[in-house]
């Protein structure tokens, strides 16, 4: 186990070299991003998958994978930088985002279903 000061020093010097990518890592990230962007656009524009729900799920999966690719190859996320505090902050944010998004969509969806009769505005003059 290292002492606190040592860890801080190692970090202050270490992350400068660790947090930047290399030419190959940028190119790999770019290549993957192009593919992961092009496929969902192609799926939606051409309508290859007949079911819209299935297309939507595939497109969302591609988005999640591409976000991870960007995090690793462009933002250089890893569990080591800043003694893992960047990863901790990211995990906390992801939890908050998931709670906020699913909570909002779930509650408002139920509200919409329960309010159904009011939605029938088309028959009104």
């Amino acid at each position: 186990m290292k002492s606190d000061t040592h860890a801080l020093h190692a970090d202050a010097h270490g992350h400068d070299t660790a947090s930047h990518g290399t030419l190959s890592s940028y190119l790999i990230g770019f290549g993957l991003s192009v593919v992961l962007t092009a496929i969902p656009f192609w799926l939606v524009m051409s309508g290859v998958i007949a079911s819209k729900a299935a297309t939507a799920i595939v497109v969302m999966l591609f988005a999640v994978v591409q976000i991870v690719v960007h995090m690793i190859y462009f933002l250089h996320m890893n569990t080591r930088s800043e003694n893992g505090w960047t990863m901790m902050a990211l995990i906390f944010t992801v939890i908050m985002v998931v709670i906020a998004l699913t909570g909002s969509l779930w509650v408002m969806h139920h509200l919409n279903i329960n309010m159904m009769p009011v939605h029938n505005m088309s028959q009104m003059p």
Partner: protein
Amino acid sequence: MTVQTMNIAAGSSETSQPVFHVLDEHAHPEGYSTSLGFWIYLMSDCLIFAMLFAVFGVLGGNYAAGPAPKDLFDLKLVAVNTSMLLLSSITYGFAMLTMEKSQVRATQMWLAITGLFGLAFIGIELTEFAHMIHEGATPQRSAFLSSFFTLVGTHGLHVSFGLVWLVTLMVQVARYGLIEANRRRLMCLSMFWHFLDVVWIGVFTFVYLLGMLR
């Protein structure tokens, strides 16, 4: 590690009361915590976008008998826009790589190319907005359009401020060279720029692609 230090501190100072803070004064070189602090700012920014995505998710289907995504969006234009932002991300990466090699001119050139791609992105987005507003699809038209303009507009505003920041840093580098402070600032802008690209993945997927599937 902290516990260990505290125990040692509590043991050496012969008071019976425990000490709950780290006693050894470690050095804080200038800017050593900037990247973590900036990362936490980005995470808070991420929460802002998450709220705007939630609003769009809730209101995105409320057209108020107005235009729907299918009537408004041109996916080819969005694809071009996406590639502009993606290209600006990789050119910013090249700027960081040349910065590490202390090549001032090459860094400036890549920053300028990044700025041009960013400008193209903003230009295309504003053209799209102008076209929509011209067709009567203004933010006041429906809840869908209000949330659309808020979400996409906030992202565009971030990119615009990123461009202002980029030009500022180019002037800084031209004046003072690639000094330590400027390297740190360029690193922060790099995180900001790549983060905006990550947000754009969410925008083109949830707003444009899923909007066309509705």
